[in-house]
């Protein structure tokens, strides 16, 4: 069955690009949201590798949940791409957000063309005492965008989202995900199959326009909203189809 389906290219913008083209002072935020069981490593690989002009960008991969050893194994890039790994797993013990940036991203001096893949920064909401979403964005994520990176790809697990809030932490998590929607230019929602399991489909990937103002994108490029089925083969290769 699956062999009959035409493999589709991942398209984010109307000019068939995946990474955005914006002027030197601009920024962009992508959010990749997934549920347990659909950890979207393949999508991160696809975004980094499949863009036709990816050699213009400097990539940094940082994760709060997986260490460098693991990330270096699973993020497979061609040798001519500039990819750097910054391990943030131990930063969960930090008590001060600005020091994380100072210590871990000291080597980055200018932001032009820098792309950061940031995995699960929301874990800081649990690990750091009394941290609010407001402070997480103001003191950490916004500061990364201010002088270190131009493009941010935030990978978050939305199983902590709850539409009924009963505690301080639940409020922080929920408003964190909502803030992502308000700030993002593009949202990637990786969902498991509703029926549970199928031999030839692993889940669906929905690309939607985020809530941010889109007037900063060069030309008249627009986000193409789309929904793909995806299937992860045993060898790790991924097929996208309608």
């Amino acid at each position, binding site marked *: 069955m699956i062999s009959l389906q035409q493999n589709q290219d991942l398209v984010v913008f109307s000019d068939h690009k995946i990474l955005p083209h914006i002027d030197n002072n601009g920024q962009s935020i992508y959010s990749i949201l997934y549920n347990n069981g659909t950890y979207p490593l393949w999508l991160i690989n696809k975004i980094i590798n499949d863009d036709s002009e990816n050699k213009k960008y400097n990539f940094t991969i940082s994760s709060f949940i997986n260490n460098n050893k693991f990330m270096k194994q699973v993020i497979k890039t061609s040798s001519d791409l500039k990819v750097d790994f910054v391990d943030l797993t131990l930063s969960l013990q930090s008590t001060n957000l600005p020091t994380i940036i100072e210590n871990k991203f000291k080597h980055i001096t200018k932001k032009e063309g820098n792309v950061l893949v940031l995995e699960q920064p929301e874990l800081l909401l649990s690990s750091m005492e009394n941290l609010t979403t407001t402070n997480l964005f103001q003191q950490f994520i*916004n500061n990364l965008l201010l002088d270190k990176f131009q493009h941010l790809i935030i990978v978050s697990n939305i199983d902590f989202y709850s539409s009924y809030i009963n505690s*301080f932490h639940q409020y922080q998590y929920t*408003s964190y995900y*909502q803030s992502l929607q308000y*700030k993002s230019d593009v949202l990637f929602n990786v969902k498991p199959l509703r029926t549970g399991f199928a031999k030839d489909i692993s889940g669906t990937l929905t690309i*939607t326009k985020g809530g941010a103002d889109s007037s900063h994108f060069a030309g008249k490029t627009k986000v193409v*909203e789309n929904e793909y089925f995806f299937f992860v083969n045993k060898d790790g290769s991924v097929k996208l189809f309608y």
Partner: protein
Amino acid sequence: MALGTHNSTVLLKRAFSLKETTPLVLVLDTLLQTATSSILSEFKQNNKALNVIYVGFDNVNNKPAYSDFLVKGFAFIDTKGKTFETKYGKLIQLVNGKCDATKHNLIIMDNINYIENEFILDFINSLSSVQNYDLANSREELVNNKTLLTVYHKDNVDYEKFQEVSNASFENSLFPNTLQLLTASANIMLDINPVITDNKFVDDEEDVDNNLSKFHIPRGFNNKTNYQLELTHKRKSGRVTTFKFIVDSEKHEYIDDTKVIKVENPFGNNDISEFDGMTTFNLKSTDKQKKAKENVELPFMEAQQFTSGGAIVYEFEKDDDYDEEDPFEDPF
């Protein structure tokens, strides 16, 4: 007297060009229809002479096309500050410095949820119109060339009490929440929502809620060209009027939607087109017939004029017997 529908669009345009005086313009948005990507562009569009200062918290580096200045709000806040002055003093000073004395200034605060509940009123007061004390004439002068606009995300209103760690005392106190403070201050409120019925990717509102409860955002939202706007305007007299519009922010068109929302007869709006071809009667009436119908003066109209008061007039007739005792009188 109800305002005619043609006045509502005029009022909306006056609101957009900031001709109506208000200390605060409040914009309410949701996840599915954000203000940044839609309605905020209408102000500059309707009044090109405005000096728009965008104070970005949600947005760090991108200066929106509809603004003249971008102030990176979060970078000028002293997070260790305990009082309003120490925490936000620098930001307020910076924003006020960007104001142009020769133009009308619009300060867009996107979004107000970043300011703590206890500081909201201070914040509004320090950024809306300033009172300058005029020494020469020894009187207070209201400098009226500034309008503050705040964006408020209305997703978590019910749960706002969980916003801060020290909410234990707040929860018990009767201090109003942020939305209540803002609605009390604003004379113009613009509430935007997506038009769910026009979205082909979702079935109905229930379907949308279902998706949102798992934080799966459906396609087709954050639509710039077709969204609903509810304008609430408070006058000095205290009268509050509300209008609904369908707005297209690309063509900058506003269509009054109030008529459709207000259902005048219990069978829906007077639309009988659904009976087409189902009856042998002609249920329709032409415009001419409708006009004629409206002009007919009904006999009871005269009776509605209460000029003579409501006296009961009883005339004694010859067969009536006059009774001294009242049969319904209280026996005690």
